[in-house]
């Protein structure tokens, strides 16, 4: 397989994106102007085509794992740090997903972001993100993984703060960055621990059963458990899991295509990818699986419950993303290859429908002049037909409507969780089902509120009518914006079914990334259970019930929502206030930290600044006093100093005066 050019030159995918970022950064404002999206678009499209071909090559290979050496970054005697890429089913699938969804979102953004300040800056940063993200999924070395992990974080920071003049965007960017640092700190510690224990950071050695894995196991159970927990800590930050999920809803301050690309489809799934990649480690670590499962479960439920009552359109979607990521971690918590495959399956389908939901919300925002409150919208389906239909597809897919893509992948997760032994997993399965009902309900609520009924706000209605009629903007739904929506909608509808029915699920394909033995094991397990028909039926019923209830509540004017909110006031308040997690964080973490920071500031001003000034002042004082007079410009004096210095030197060696 490694002799195929699509694998050998896979590095072209990130390289072209980097090139596009550089070109756009240099030439964007001055020469490209409104064409600034083109380099990024071409790079993403090239990446999509190339990675699709690579995916085909990988799928047909007998031995589907290839390490592609690209650059030796540093080589000194035994130390060798290489930019080496790993092409296997897992990375190929992720790469395809990133570039494919990425290219569609870039096309959409070329329309969405037009007339914005910093058009070129936007696409330069997006291209940089694509470079970082594609590298992140391809690299075969933990150090490089960390580098790109931080780079995507940086891009995320830059793009959340894209409208940096708005205080709330700047604050959101800062919050995302700081919260991610907490996770990354653990991640870095985990990497250090692997380095200390194994002496290498290459996947090739760390994941090899007879090398890194053995060393980690031999170092004692605590070491392996600690490593996995620390790595998971990084994933919790990046993939917005409880309790570090608080940054993701605020990240919606960024432009909507960014929310679609980074904060829904790709970057936030990096944590899932990383845990899936290290499943061989997680499978051996005692107790870690349960932690992952519980965190995933809690996140999925809390986020879905919060989403029930939110009024901000994008925030509903953000909580939905958090909840879906929770599902993925539930599957990963099982700690088997089958679990990892189910998680990646959900990552893949989720990328389609969640990106589509965000793009749809972007279209709605354009039409309503940036309005985000779902209670002020309504009846938009007659103004924005394409947006409406595609949004519906995505919403149904998210809700788990039978036979749509979300249905298959969510079912795969629930089935895996359900079938795993243990009381915790049974409980998790139950929570998963409840969450599925909540999911169907909240997305149905958002859909009906936005697209059905009559407009609830006169001003918004006028704005939308004006937007649809006014030809100055161009048509309300031009081709460049419609095409990505339609492609994604087709994907949302079909991808799951195609994978599940035509290819018999992802297990046979993806388990190849984990070697032959796990593949056989996972396939056997998969075949033994087949499709869990019971679970399928149950989740279909639950989804339909949720959607139906949403229709009853919000499909037409109804007294039920208010009445229910009164009846269940405590629960309602919990949901509206997002479990008071932000407030809790404020009291428990932020306030004490600020107090410590204030104390540190005093310390800093007095002690550290004093020291710094001393570092600058004392040597200068010393030099002025003692050294300067020596440099008096007299040749005989200089000669004397040299000879006296020589005398000192000779004294030191002749009389064996040795330090130490």
């Amino acid at each position, binding site marked *: 397989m490694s002799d195929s050019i699509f694998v050998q030159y896979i590095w072209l995918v990130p390289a072209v994106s980097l090139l596009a970022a550089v070109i756009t950064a240099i030439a964007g404002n001055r020469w490209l102007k409104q064409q600034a999206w083109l380099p990024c678009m071409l790079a993403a499209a090239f990446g999509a085509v190339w990675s699709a071909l690579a995916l085909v090559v990988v799928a047909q290979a007998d031995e589907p794992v290839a390490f592609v050496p690209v650059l030796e970054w540093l080589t000194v005697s035994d130390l060798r740090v290489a930019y080496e890429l790993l092409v296997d089913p897992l990375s190929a699938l992720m790469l395809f997903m990133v570039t494919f969804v990425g290219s569609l979102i870039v096309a959409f953004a070329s329309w969405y972001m037009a007339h914005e300040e910093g058009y070129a800056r936007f696409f330069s940063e997006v291209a940089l993100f694509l470079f970082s993200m594609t590298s992140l999924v391809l690299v075969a070395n933990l150090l490089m993984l960390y580098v790109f992990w931080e780079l995507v974080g940086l891009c995320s920071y830059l793009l959340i703060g894209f409208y940096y003049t708005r205080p709330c965007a700047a604050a959101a960017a800062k919050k995302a960055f700081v919260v991610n640092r907490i996770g990354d700190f653990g991640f870095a510690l985990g990497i250090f621990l692997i380095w200390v224990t194994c002496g290498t950071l290459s996947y090739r050695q760390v994941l090899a059963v007879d090398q890194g894995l053995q060393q980690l196991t031999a170092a004692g159970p605590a070491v392996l458990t600690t490593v996995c927990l620390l790595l998971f800590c990084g994933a919790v930050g990046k993939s917005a899991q409880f309790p570090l999920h608080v940054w993701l809803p605020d990240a919606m301050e960024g432009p909507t295509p960014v929310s679609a690309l980074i904060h829904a489809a790709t970057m936030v799934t990096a944590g899932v990818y990383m845990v899936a990649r290290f499943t061989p480690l997680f499978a051996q670590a005692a107790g870690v699986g349960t932690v992952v499962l519980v965190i995933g479960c809690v996140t999925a439920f809390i986020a879905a419950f919060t989403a029930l009552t939110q009024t901000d359109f994008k925030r509903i979607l953000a909580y939905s993303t958090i909840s879906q990521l929770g599902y993925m971690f539930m599957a990963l918590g099982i700690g088997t290859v089958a679990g990892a495959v189910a998680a990646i399956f959900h990552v893949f389908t989720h990328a389609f429908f969640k990106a589509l939901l965000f793009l749809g919300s972007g279209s709605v925002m354009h039409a309503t002049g940036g309005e985000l409150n779902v209670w002020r919208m309504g009846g938009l389906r007659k103004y924005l037909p394409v947006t409406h239909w595609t949004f519906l597809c995505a919403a149904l897919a998210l809700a788990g409507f039978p036979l749509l893509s979300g249905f298959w992948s969510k079912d795969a997760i629930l089935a895996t969780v359900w079938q795993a032994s243990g009381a915790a997993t049974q409980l998790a399965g139950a929570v998963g089902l409840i969450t599925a009902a909540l999911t169907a309900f909240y997305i149905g609520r958002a859909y009906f509120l936005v697209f059905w009924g009559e407009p609830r706000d006169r001003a918004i209605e006028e704005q939308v009518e004006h937007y649809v009629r006014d030809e100055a903007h161009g048509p309300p739904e031009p081709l460049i914006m419609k095409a990505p929506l339609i492609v994604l909608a087709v994907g949302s509808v079909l991808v799951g079914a195609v994978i599940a029915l035509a290819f018999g699920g992802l297990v046979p394909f993806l388990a190849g990334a984990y070697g032959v033995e796990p593949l056989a094991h996972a396939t056997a397990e998969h075949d033994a259970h087949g499709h869990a028909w019971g679970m399928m039926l149950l989740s279909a019923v639950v989804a339909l019930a949720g959607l139906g209830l949403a229709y009853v509540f919000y499909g037409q004017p109804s007294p039920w929502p208010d009445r229910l909110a009164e009846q269940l006031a405590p629960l309602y308040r919990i949901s509206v206030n997002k479990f008071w997690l932000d407030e809790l964080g404020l009291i428990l973490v932020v306030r004490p930290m600020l107090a410590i920071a204030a104390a540190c500031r005093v310390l800093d001003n007095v002690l550290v600044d004093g020291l710094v000034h001393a570092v600058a002042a004392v040597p200068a004082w010393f030099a002025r006093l003692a050294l300067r007079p020596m440099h*008096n*410009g007299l040749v*005989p004096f200089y000669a004397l100093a040299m000879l006296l210095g020589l005398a000192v030197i000779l004294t030191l060696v002749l009389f064996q005066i040795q330090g130490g």
Partner: protein
Amino acid sequence: MPVEFVRNYLIISSVLFSIGAAGFVARRNLITMFLSVELMLQGVALSLVAFGRAWGNYHGEVFALFVIAVAAAEAAIALALVLVLYRHRHSLDVFWWQQLREPGTTPPVPEPVEEAEVSTEVHWPKLPPAGIEPVREKETIDVG
């Protein structure tokens, strides 16, 4: 290599070297300073030759020859340089050359007192009686 072979030579060469070093530091005349360095070099050359004799090979002699050759080259440069320096100050005193130093320091030894008037006229040497002195009045030398 028994020490006795070279002891006396080494003592002499060290003495030469030290005298040269002391002369370099103590003398103010540019030419004398350079001659002091020459003295040091000759001390080195002596020890080289002595070591060569003691070891029974020619490395030392060859080295000494090189030292002498390089010393000659340096002497050529030194003469040119001293000439230029003399033209500027009409003095060979090394203390004239201490303008480049750390700002704000005073040299331990003050500069020589500038003579009331530094003549830039050329004083040609007296020619033997048979010759005719060239007619050159009030010519100045370009001190560039």
